[in-house]
C-alpha cells in the first residue's frame, strides 16, 4: 500500500460535492461491490454546460478522492471539455495516485462518461 498525497488526503478529509442531485440531468454509476468500489455521479446541465455535479462513493480513500476531484474539475465545463478529462488528468490533479489505486481514476472517468451518456439519452428521449 503506497501512501497518499496530501491532495488525496485533503479530498478524502473534506470531500467536495457529496450527495445526489435531486433533479439530475444525468446519472452515471460505475464499479461493483466485488472489487470494492462503486461510484455514482450525478450532473445538472444547462446549455451544454455542467452547472452542478455531485457524487456518492462506496470505496477506498482514493475512490472517494477521485470522485470528489472529478466533480470539482467538471463543474462549469462544457460537456465536450468535461469528456476530455482523462483518468490520468484526475490522478495528476490529485498529485498522483499509488500504482495500485490508478483504477479508481479510471472508475471516475467512466462514471462521468456514463452520466453524460445518460444525460444525452435523456435529452433525446424528450
Amino acid at each position: 500500500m503506497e501512501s497518499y498525497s496530501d491532495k488525496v488526503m485533503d479530498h478524502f478529509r473534506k470531500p467536495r460535492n457529496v450527495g445526489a442531485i435531486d433533479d439530475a440531468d444525468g446519472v452515471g454509476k460505475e464499479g461493483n461491490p466485488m472489487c470494492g468500489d462503486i461510484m455514482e455521479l450525478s450532473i445538472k446541465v444547462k446549455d451544454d454546460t455542467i452547472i452542478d455535479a455531485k457524487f456518492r462513493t462506496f470505496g477506498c480513500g482514493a475512490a472517494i478522492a477521485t470522485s470528489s476531484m472529478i466533480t470539482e474539475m467538471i463543474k462549469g465545463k462544457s460537456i465536450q471539455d468535461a469528456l476530455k478529462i482523462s483518468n490520468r488528468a484526475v490522478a495528476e490533479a490529485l498529485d498522483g495516485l499509488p500504482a495500485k489505486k490508478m483504477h479508481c481514476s479510471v472508475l471516475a472517468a467512466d462514471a462521468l462518461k456514463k452520466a453524460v451518456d445518460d444525460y444525452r439519452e435523456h435529452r433525446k428521449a424528450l
Partner: protein
Amino acid sequence: MKRIYLDYAATTPADPRVIDEMLPFFTEHFGNPSSVHSFGQETKSAVEAARETVSGLLGAAPDEIVFVSGATEANNTALKGTAFAKRDKGNHIITSAIEHHSVSETVAALKKEGFRITNLPVDRYGMVDPDDVKKAIDEKTILISIMHANNEIGTIQPIAEIGKIARERSITFHTDAVQSLGHIPVNVDDLDVDLLSGSSHKFYGPKGVGFLYVRKGTKLTALLFGGDQEKRRRAGTHNTPGIVGTAAAARIAHESMAEESVREAVLRDRLIKGITGAVQDASLNGHPTMRLPNNANISFHFIEGESILLSLDMEGIAASSGSACTSSTLEPSHVLLAIGLSHEVAHGSIRFSLGRWTTDEDVARVIEVLPGIVSRLRVMSPLFAERTSHGIVQR
C-alpha cells in the same frame, strides 16, 4: 494526539525486556554458534538455552524446535517439507478455506506440482468441522494443515479433535499457531500436532525469527540447504539475538498469559458491545465465544474498509482490514467470504486486535469516534442511500 494501536495481530512492538536480553548478543556475544572457539560456544549455549525455554513452554523436547526466519518460512517448510518427504506415500493434502496466505499459497504451489488438495469449508463462525476432516481423508492423504486461531476473525479451531483423527490414521498434522501463541495455551501433546508454526513478532518478540515444532520421527525435507545447523533441518547462520529474543518473549507471554488474556477479553467484549451498540448495522465476525481474547472483527455495512481505516488513522487509531499483507489487493478477504459474507460486507470489515498496552481509555476512544466516522462515510455511500431509500436518485 496520543496514538492508539489496535493492530497487535499484524505485529507487536517488542517488549523492552526482550530487547534487553537480546542486546548483548549483537555486539558482545556475537560468535557464530557453529564455531569451535569460545566466542562460538557461548552463543551456542544461549541458542540451546533458548531452545529449551521454547520447547518447555510448548510441552516439547528441545530438539523438536527448529528456529527459522518467521512463520512464513515455518509454514512453507512444514508443507513443502512434508509433501516432498512423503511423496511416495501419497499426494493428498487437506487444509481449510481460511488459512493464512503462507499456507494457502504454498498449498496452491504444491497443487501445481501434482498434489491433490482438499480445501475444507468453514461454518458462519469460521469453524472447521472435524467430521469434514474425517470424511476428506482417503488412503492417499499425507498431510492435514489447519490453523489454530484465525488471524482475521480470531476463531479458535478444534485442533485437538482434528489431531486425534490425524493421529489415529498416522497422517502428519500441521497447525499454524501464529495467532494463538502467547495468547492462549498451546501444548503440542494436548493439540496432538506433529508440526506447529510460530512467529516471534506476534508475541512481543523480534521480527524476522520464528520456529517450527517438528515432532520426533516426523519426516520432513529441508527447505533451506547449506550448513549443518538445526540438525540439517534448516541451514543458515543462527540469528542468535533473534533466538534469544524469541525465548524471552515466549517466557514473558507465558508468565502473564492467564491474567492478560482475561484483561484483554474484557476489553475486547467492551469494544464489541460498545461499537455494535453505538453503530447500526455493525456485526461481529467470527465465533462469539471460541475466539482469541484480543480479536474483534466487525463489519460496517454499506461502507468500505480502507476508508474506515484511513478515517481511524486520522484520529490516531490503527486497525486493519483483513490481514495486513493483503491490504493492497482489491479482492476482499478470503476468510470473510468463506464465512459467507457478501463481497460488499466483506469489504467493509475491520479487525481491531488488542494487546499488552491496550487500555480502557483506548477502547473508550474507539467507541467514541467510530459512530461519526461511519455516518460520515455512509452519507457518501450509494449503497447506504439505496438501503435507506433516502435521497436515492430515481429517474
